[in-house]
């Protein structure tokens, strides 16, 4: 039989263009030869050469040559076709070869090819051949694309090809399973290679979306399939292991499925272990919570792997409790690590906790300390939540840590991670896991949901109309604005009375009235207030809440602002000197900063001129919430200012005309600003701005930024800008991101407030230095807000430059 084939091939000759009769003869001989796998080496070589000639010939051969490629041994046909693609010459081949390849794929020859390659794994010299074919199989879309100069047919788009390849792989795995059941030995290492190479080429999604759902089903109760699966991942070469493991972890619908698919891979393979326990948890942080749950759930599901789980927890906690990590890593990563810790804790069992209680306690204490030290509220809260969770896990009967923080969605989500220890396998599938069954089942459910919601929304108006019938609308209310709180004592009428009550009186009712009345008294009688202004400022600064008066802090602050605006120079001198003196609490120092900012804003606001009161309330675009005092308000104010300003630069003069009046802040800006900037680097025994009191430093920096901004159009602005730039330069590498954010706001304020000509003449060098620092921040800063602010600053600088260019002096 082989002889017949040989003679047919010989008859066809080695010419470049075999005729139709020759093709027909070879086909007939092949059919007669039966199993193509039984061909001898010589025949194979000849047939291969014949096919290559056929595909590479200068003109299209006549006759049913295409079928020959589908009937001859798949590796020979595949090699011949891809060879002709790789060496492209214009001619008939351009459309025809891909068509044949497409037929080749469609008729399942790819599976046959892989199958054959799997079986020949032990033949001598097969390694090189395997590598060559592996490359061609995996890179087929690229080969076709390159050969056709980008005009490849849809079947060879990666989105189409890799699912087909996945199907072929599955087919081969079915064969493997069948032959294992038949008692034959089988190798899956070639499939592992394909899988690995596809994954490392970034096509995990396409191939695994076919493989994972099917393997999930097949491994459910079949231990042979489970072993095939384990073997499949174990045989992946180390250099591709990471991509494969990542793909499986991201796409498995639950931890138990992952455990079935991967087996004890992490225990056997060092590389996989590194990826799972280190890389995905500690080095990367972009995965969703579901992926984390998959991963840690997988570690928790087997006794051998649980040791790893505990090790992972210890490493996570080490990172969590390291003050350097808290300071320098971005918020998103810290959230990710916190989530991982909580999930780990949810998987731990009582005896395991018992064994590492001491370590948990130590890391918790350290971690909570450095988290609470942070000046970013989100990080503080993250620390509180994790510490609470650890403490509740290790002290099952004793007292546990509890903190007060805002309960929002994020906090609830984090806490929910801790309780759901059991629901392995009921995790919903990942959104990009294209399980057709699930998809098909989904729409009706959604629809019914939608129906029910619309039904409820329909019910609502009914109820309301019913309620309207039953309302008191026919009764028109009278004016009730006079319905105020009944006062037991009369409010003091003179400022001196207030001072007396606030300093000496034991009558708490009087004291409350005095606190409430003070602001309006000061505003009404500026002359009288000026006589006692510094004394009043002193009293207010030291005033402590005696009764639980509602809004006390706000009342006090308003009074302080009133005093400061009535008699700015002496009071500002007093307050700024007190900011750097001994024996004040941090709260008082921050109060000083708040009052300075609010007063400066009132003074600089044109509406604040004359007798108009409460200018703050009239300014529509900026809301001051001094009481909450959180960093967000500060940042938001500055941001909003910058934003509004930036827009105006772009659009030109388009702002609404504002009421004008002399800027009262003009002569005062220096009194507010310079005393604050002078002493920051002189630590006192109770107050160290550059050391642990970095939160106050952050507030100081933000305050300076706002003062700088408000000093626009004043005389002192250039000197202020220069001093502030130096100040920024000195602190630019501060570790606290809140401080850095303030510094960046300072730069924005300088750019916006100081006239462009002065900037270029007086502070050119500083500006250039700042610019290079900003570029550095944009690229390297771990904090997203810092990067954003720095970018805004760079834009401002660009605008400035453009402005100068368009208006030459």
């Amino acid at each position: 039989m082989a002889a017949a084939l040989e003679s047919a091939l010989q008859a066809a000759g080695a010419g470049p263009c075999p005729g139709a009769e020759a093709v027909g003869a070879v086909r007939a001989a092949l059919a007669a030869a039966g199993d193509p796998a039984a061909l001898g080496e010589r025949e194979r070589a000849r047939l291969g050469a014949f096919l290559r000639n056929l595909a590479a010939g200068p003109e299209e051969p006549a006759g049913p040559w295409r079928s020959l490629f589908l009937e001859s041994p798949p590796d020979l046909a595949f090699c011949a076709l891809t060879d002709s693609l790789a060496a492209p010459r214009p001619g008939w081949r351009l459309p025809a070869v891909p068509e044949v390849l497409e037929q080749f794929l469609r008729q399942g020859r790819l599976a046959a090819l892989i199958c054959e390659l799997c079986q020949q794994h032990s033949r001598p010299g097969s390694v090189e051949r395997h590598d060559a074919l592996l490359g061609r199989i995996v890179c087929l879309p690229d080969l076709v694309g390159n050969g056709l100069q980008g005009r490849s047919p849809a079947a060879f788009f990666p989105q189409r090809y890799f699912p087909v390849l996945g199907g072929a792989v599955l087919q081969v795995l079915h064969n493997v399973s069948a032959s294992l059941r038949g008692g034959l030995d089988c190798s899956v290492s070639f499939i592992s290679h394909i899988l690995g190479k596809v994954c490392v080429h970034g096509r995990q999604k396409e191939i695994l979306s076919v493989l994972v759902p099917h393997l999930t089903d097949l491994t459910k109760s079949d231990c042979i399939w489970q072993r095939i699966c384990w073997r499949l991942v174990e045989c992946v070469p180390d250099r591709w292991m990471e991509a494969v493991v990542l793909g499986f972890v991201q796409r498995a619908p639950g931890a138990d499925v992952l455990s079935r698919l991967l087996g004890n891979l992490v225990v056997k393979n060092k590389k996989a272990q590194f990826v799972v326990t280190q890389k995905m948890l500690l080095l990367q942080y972009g995965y969703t919570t579901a992926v984390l749950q998959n991963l840690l759930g997988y570690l928790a599901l087997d006794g051998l792997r649980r040791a790893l789980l505990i090790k992972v927890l210890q490493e996570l906690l080490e990172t969590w409790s390291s003050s350097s990590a808290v300071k320098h890593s971005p918020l998103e990563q810290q959230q990710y690590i916190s989530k991982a810790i909580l999930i780990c804790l949810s998987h731990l069992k009582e005896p395991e906790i018992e064994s590492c209680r001491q370590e948990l306690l130590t890391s918790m204490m350290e971690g909570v300390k450095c988290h609470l030290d942070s000046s970013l509220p989100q990080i503080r809260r993250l620390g509180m939540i994790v510490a609470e969770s650890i403490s509740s896990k290790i002290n099952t009967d004793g007292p546990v840590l509890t903190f007060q923080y805002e309960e929002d969605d994020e906090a609830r989500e984090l806490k929910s991670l801790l309780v759901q220890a059991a629901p392995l396998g009921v995790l919903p599938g990942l959104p990009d896991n294209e399980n057709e069954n699930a998809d098909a089942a989904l729409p009706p459910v959604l629809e019914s949901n939608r129906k029910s919601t619309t039904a409820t929304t329909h019910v609502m108006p009914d109820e309301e109309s019913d309620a309207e019938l039953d309302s008191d609308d026919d009764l028109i209310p009278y004016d009730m604005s006079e319905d105020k709180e009944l006062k037991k004592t009369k409010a003091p009428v003179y400022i001196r009375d207030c001072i007396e009550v606030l300093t000496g009186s034991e009558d708490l009712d009087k004291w409350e009235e005095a606190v409430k009345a003070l602001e309006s008294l000061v505003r009404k009688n500026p002359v009288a207030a000026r006589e006692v202004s510094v004394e009043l400022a002193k009293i207010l600064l030291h005033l402590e809440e005696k009764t639980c008066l509602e809004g006390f802090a706000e009342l006090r602050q308003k009074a302080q602002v009133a005093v400061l605006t009535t008699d700015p120079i002496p009071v500002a001198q007093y307050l700024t000197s007190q900011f750097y003196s001994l024996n004040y609490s941090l709260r008082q120092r921050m109060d000083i900063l708040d009052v300075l900012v609010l007063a400066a804003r009132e003074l600089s606001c044109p509406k604040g001129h004359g007798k108009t009161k409460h200018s703050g309330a009239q300014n529509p675009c900026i809301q001051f919430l001094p009481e909450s005092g959180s960093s967000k308000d500060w940042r938001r104010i500055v941001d909003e200012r910058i934003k509004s300003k930036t827009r105006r630069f772009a659009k030109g003069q388009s702002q609404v005309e504002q009421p004008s009046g002399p800027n009262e802040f003009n002569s005062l800006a220096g009194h507010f600003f310079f005393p604050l900037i002078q002493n920051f680097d002189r630590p006192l025994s109770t107050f160290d701005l550059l050391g642990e009191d970095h939160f106050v430093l952050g507030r100081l920096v933000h305050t300076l930024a706002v003062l700088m901004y408000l000093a626009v159009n004043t005389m002192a602005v250039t000197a202020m800008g220069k001093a502030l730039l130096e100040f920024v330069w000195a602190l630019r590498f501060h570790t606290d991101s809140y401080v850095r954010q303030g510094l960046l706001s300072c730069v924005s304020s300088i750019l916006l407030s100081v006239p462009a000509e002065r900037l270029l003449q007086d502070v050119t060098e500083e500006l250039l230095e700042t610019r290079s620092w900003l570029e550095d921040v944009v690229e390297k800063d771990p904090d997203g807000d810092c990067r954003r602010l720095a970018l805004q600053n760079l834009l401002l600088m660009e605008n400035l430059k453009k402005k100068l260019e368009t208006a030459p002096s």
Partner: protein
Amino acid sequence: MAQPPPDPHFVLRGTGAAVHALHFSCGGGEPDIPVLFSGSENGFIHVWNLKTHRVDAALDGHGRKSVCGLKTMDGKERLLSQGRDQRICLWDLAEGRTSVTDSVFTENVGFCRCSLLKVAEGRWLMATAAKALEEVQVLELPSKTSVCTLKPEVGAKLGMPMCLKLWQGSCGSQPSLLAGYEDGSVLLWNLSTGKVLSQLICHQEPVMSLDFDSEKAKGISGSSEKVLSIWSLNEQQNLQVQKTHRLVNAGISDITIRPDKKILATAGWDHRIRIFGWKKLKPLAVLDYHTATVHSVSFSDHKSPSDRLLAAGAKDHRISIWLIYTQT
């Protein structure tokens, strides 16, 4: 701009002491003169002629001890008055007589006003706080036979009863009693079994006053705190809080729903009378006339809606009479 609140229609002066109780009797026909009874801290009951705005008679029956409750039984001839001398007196005022015909010695030292309910022609039920601290006694009048004594469970720690309201659903159903206690809870008692049907803790402080609308099965209570509590009684005879309304100033000494169930009035410790719509508790008016705590508010029982008056008696010895929301 909403209208400013109205001034009093007129003011009755001359009681000579703080006014603690008010009761209208204006339901008679044309020849009948509408009257207002007022009880003062000095023990006098004044009968005010609402045509002349003068005192027709001053009754002295409580030994100069404060009068805290006034009720009439079928017209203005038979008056029931409760005083701090621990007595409840029944007066015969027909044809100019001013004599006490009967009296009940309650032995109760508290401030709790009694509640009266007509259950049949010539038969009344009266609930009063009893001698024992936490108990309420229900008597039948005029026979003065005891119907039941309502004792809270041992260890309930309700404190003294502070206010009572006897009521009866649609005709024929059993009368029940709502009682507000010192601990801030309101209890619904079944008079025939003497058992608590429902308990609702609606205030943190003693319940100073409550009123109940048996048609809507909805009631309101006020206490010494800043909150009015509106609760309802469902079909399972359970009391549930419906909503609460926050007041500007603390302390409510009396609450009355107008007989037509449209509005209600509260007497405040902050010297003010507040008017609310009853359906939604929409605030309607704040009447600021008195200069001291208002002790009592009462709506008149005039036949014609446009004549319906609101009276408020206060610690400043005055009784203010208002015409408000009479057109609805």
